[in-house]
């Protein structure tokens, strides 16, 4: 089945002075995706997102959103996008309701009080609608930030580091909200983050960038399951086990930590061999498991 593409960026390049912030980034987002945009701080995530939103003009490369080139179609494209870029900054001296009302007006739409209250309810802020934003916690501002992306019922929502600085409950709330928007309301989302665990929990596709370049792009589950993964093993005779393993698997770098856990990056299938070797040499294997997270994957490739 051919999936409908919503965003296609090709060969994006951006310099700030002599520094190359983005170096030939390509990415494709399909309708219905929760598309993770991953990379360490300073890798070029925010710059790329700002280019998608016409806040920054690329030096070269092209962007098509909703099958339209961004150049010359800024207003049309932005009317279908809701975005929260970095910190959720609002007019602190105005209420949450008034902020949303003003932002809706800037979008050129007439929004009823009921519609704004419904959006505030969606993000759990209906009871604080008349409170000044300056009284809000960071988590509440973040939720209000997501609320403002929904004002004009966009097809595509772009959230730049939406869980930055939130406590665990706040992170869980935002995660549930993102999934709800995707599953129940059919929104396509691009979410940038350096918190990999979150991406693993919500994204179906992702791109990893580092130093302004794409390292890999694809399906999250496929990316996690491919290549080397970290093995952790606890044996009855750790020093003896380590010597044996190093002798047998010369190309693998086995390390032992302070808890006497032996760790190594191994290819899929090698775990079974390792287990058999130790058992055949009368070393009891108490624990053996593979770390199978995006974080490990990310650390391996960046």
């Amino acid at each position, binding site marked *: 089945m051919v999936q409908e593409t919503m965003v296609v960026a090709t060969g994006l390049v951006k310099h700030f002075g002599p520094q190359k912030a983005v170096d030939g980034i390509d990415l494709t987002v399909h309708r219905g995706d929760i598309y993770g945009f991953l990379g360490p701080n300073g890798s070029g995530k925010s710059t790329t997102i700002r280019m998608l939103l016409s806040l920054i003009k690329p030096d070269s490369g092209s962007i098509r959103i909703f099958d339209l080139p961004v150049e010359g179609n800024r207003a049309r494209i*932005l009317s279908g996008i809701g975005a929260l870029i970095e910190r959720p900054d609002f007019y602190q001296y105005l209420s949450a309701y008034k902020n949303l009302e003003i932002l809706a007006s800037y979008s050129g739409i007439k929004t009823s009080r009921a519609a704004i209250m419904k959006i505030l309810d969606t993000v759990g802020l209906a009871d604080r609608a008349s409170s000044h934003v300056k009284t809000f916690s960071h988590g509440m501002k973040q939720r209000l930030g997501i609320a403002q992306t929904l004002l004009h019922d966009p097809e595509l929502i772009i959230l730049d580091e939406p869980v930055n600085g939130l406590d665990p409950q706040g992170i869980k709330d935002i995660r549930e909200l993102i999934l709800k928007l995707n599953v129940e309301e059919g929104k396509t989302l691009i979410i940038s983050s350096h918190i990999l665990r979150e991406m693993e929990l919500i994204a179906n596709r992702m791109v990893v960038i580092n130093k302004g370049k794409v390292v890999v792009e694809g399906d999250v589950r496929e990316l996690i399951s491919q290549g080397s993964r970290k093995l952790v093993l606890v044996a009855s005779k750790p020093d003896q086990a380590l010597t044996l393993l190093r002798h047998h698997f010369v190309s693998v770098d086995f390390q032992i930590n302070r808890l006497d856990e032996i760790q190594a990056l191994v290819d899929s299938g090698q775990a079974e061999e390792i287990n058999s070797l130790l058992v055949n040499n009368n070393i009891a294997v108490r624990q053996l498991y593979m770390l199978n997270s995006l974080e490990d994957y990310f650390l391996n490739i960046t």
Partner: protein
Amino acid sequence: MINLIRLEMLKLFSRGLAYIGFVAIFLIVLVIQVGMYVEGQKLLDFLIQSLSEVFLLLGKLINVYTVTYIILNSLWIHIPVLVAIVAGDMVSGEAGRGTFRLLLTRPVSRTKLLVAKFITAQVYATMLVLLLMAMSLGLGRLFFEPGDMIVLMNTINIFEQSDVMWRFIASFGYGIVSMWVIAALAFLFSVRATNSLGPVISAMSVLILFTIISNFSVGVFEPVKPFLFTSYLNGWQLFFDDPVDYGLIYKALGVLIAHISVFYLVSVLIFTRKDITS
């Protein structure tokens, strides 16, 4: 566009910053009026003591018009500072507070947004001058009676009471255009900055520097003086000449409007090409 201007006005007047100017003008006018009420006659006697030896001056020369004329001189420095505080914050304030990201990710044209902000800044400047006029001529009536007015400039002009009001209305009108230049200048600096203080200081620095050049009688500055807006900020005084030199007034207004246009066009040029990284 009207909706955008309405939104900008709403944001402006939801903040305390906008009211600083109004309070300051109220205090400036009040202080001058109280001072003139208490000590004004002595001051005027000192100023016209040489005239009194030649002319017989009868009637109340310290009246609401004389004091308003003195207040109009505050257009030189005080009102520009108040105008620059708000105009300098119009764009840079949004950048500094991070709200530009919210605005510019909405389907609103950058040029239209900038025009709305520019017009809002000019409306604010207009409101300040109108308040100055209302306070001077209105509040002034609580302290002073109307009467004939004496103006000491290059020559001595004495205007009858019936001939004064239109001159003040025209002068305040000219003052509004002068303040539009200051607003446009601060606005231009605001487009490039990410904090509010920089544009205010920059605009004031330019104003002070150009004022010095405009008033410094050194030959090397003479060729540039006709092109500096500061050479025309005090053009409101031309309405207190007799006869009024309208040719000079039109020329002065032309230079001021040219400055406003250039400052505005450069602001648009910068803003529409600017990367929003704040």
